[in-house]
C-alpha cells in the first residue's frame, strides 16, 4: 500500500497502458502464431497439394504417352520411359524396338491434348493415385490426313522418389461392363 503511494503519479497510467498494449500484442501474437502453425501443419492442405501434383503429373504423362512423331521416335520414347514407372515402364522398355519399327513404317505423327482430368483416388501415404484423363488424340498420316479421336483414359500413378509417375494406363472399356 505504501509502495503504491510512492510510485510516481505520472508514470502509473502510462505503465498500465503499456502493459495492456503489450498483453494485447502478446495475445495477437499467440493467436496468429497458432493459426500459422495450424495452416502449416494442415493435413488436408498437404493432401490437396499431393492431389494437384498427382493430377498434373498424370495429365502430362498421359499426354506424353499419346504423343509420338516418327521423325523423332527416340526422343519420344525416352519421354515415355521417363514419364512411367513400374510395370508400365517395363512394358515400354521391353517393347521399344518393336514399337520403333512400327512407327517408322507407319510414318505417323500423333499428338494429344488433355481436355479434362481429375483424380479419383489418392493414397498419399502409399503414394498411389488413380486419375481420369479425357484426351483428344490427333493422328496425322504421311499423306497429311489427320484424324481426331477422343480417348477416355484411366491412369494409375505411383510416387517414386517424390515424383508421381504413370504405372498403368488404359482406356475405359465400353459396353456391358458393370458400373464402377
Amino acid at each position: 500500500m505504501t509502495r503504491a503511494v510512492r510510485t510516481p503519479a505520472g508514470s502509473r497510467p502510462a505503465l498500465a497502458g503499456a502493459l495492456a498494449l503489450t498483453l494485447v500484442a502478446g495475445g495477437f501474437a499467440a493467436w496468429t502464431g497458432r493459426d500459422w502453425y495450424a495452416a502449416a501443419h494442415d493435413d488436408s492442405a498437404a493432401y490437396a497439394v499431393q492431389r494437384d501434383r498427382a493430377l498434373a503429373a498424370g495429365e502430362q504423362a498421359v499426354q506424353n504417352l499419346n504423343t509420338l512423331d516418327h521423325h523423332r521416335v527416340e526422343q519420344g520414347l525416352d519421354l515415355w520411359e521417363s514419364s512411367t514407372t513400374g510395370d508400365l515402364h517395363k512394358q515400354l522398355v521391353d517393347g521399344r524396338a518393336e514399337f520403333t519399327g512400327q512407327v517408322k513404317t507407319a510414318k505417323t505423327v500423333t499428338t494429344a491434348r488433355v481436355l479434362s482430368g481429375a483424380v479419383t483416388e489418392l493414397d498419399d501415404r502409399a503414394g498411389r493415385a488413380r486419375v481420369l484423363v479425357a484426351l483428344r488424340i490427333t493422328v496425322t498420316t504421311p499423306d497429311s490426313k489427320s484424324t481426331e479421336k477422343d480417348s477416355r483414359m484411366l491412369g494409375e500413378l505411383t510416387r517414386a522418389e517424390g515424383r508421381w509417375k504413370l504405372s498403368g494406363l488404359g482406356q475405359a472399356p465400353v459396353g456391358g461392363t458393370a458400373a464402377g
Partner: protein
Amino acid sequence: MPTPRHHLNRERRRQALAGPPAEPAAARPRQRPALMTAVRDTATESKRGTATEPKRETVAEDAVVRPRRLVPPATLAVLCVLTLLLGGFAGWAHSRAEGLRADPALGNTALTDLARTSEIKGQTAAAVAALFSYDHADTGPFEQAGKTLLTGKAVAQHRTLLDGVLAQAARQKTVITTTVTDSAVERIDGDRARVLVYADQSSVSTAGTAERQPKTPKQPREQAQDQGVYAGAMFAVDVVHRDGRWLVENIDTFGR
C-alpha cells in the same frame, strides 16, 4: 487505499515542495527523490521501528530509491519494445498463414472433403443416368429428370443434345439406358463442383432393327452387342448445390 494517510502524505509533500526554493509543483521525475524520501522517512520510521537517526536513514534510503525510480521508464521502454516485437510477429505470422491458405490447391476440396466428394459423385451419376436415359413407353422419368435436375444453361444444352435423338427414339421405340462407369470430381469450390464423367449408353430399338443412337456428347467407340448398341461417352458437368441437392448447371462436351 488508505485515504487518511494518503492525504497526510500529500500535505507533507506540499510542505516539502514549498520548503526548497523554486521547485515547480509538477515535479519532474528527477526532482522527486527528495520529496519521496521525505515521505518515506516518516512512513517507514514508525513502521520499521528502526528509530535510529532519521537523517542517516534518509541518505541510505536515497541510494536505494534512486534505482527504483529509474525502473518505470526502463520498464516502459521494455514494454514498448516487447509490444512492437509481438505485434510484428503477429503481423508476420498472419501473413504467413494467409500465404499458406492462398495456395490454390486449398480452394479445391475435391477428395480432401471425402464426404462431399462422394456425395457429388453419387448425385451426379444418378443425375446423368436419369437425364440421358429414355424409354419410349414411359417418358415420365425422363421428363421429370429434365425438370428437376437441370438449372441455368444446362436446360438448353440438354435439349439441344437430345432433341434429334428423342425424335428418332420415339419413332423407333427405343430404350436408351445410360450408366456412369467412371467419374471423378475435378474441383469443389463451396457450392459448385465440376465432375468428369465417363458413361456407357445402350440403345435398344424395339421396332425392328437396332440402330445406333448417338445421344450424348460423344462416342469414342461403339460396339454392337447382342441386342443393342453400346457407346461410350465422356463429358464434364458443372453442378451447383441448391436446396440440398446438386443440380446440373452446365454440360461440357469438349467442343463436340
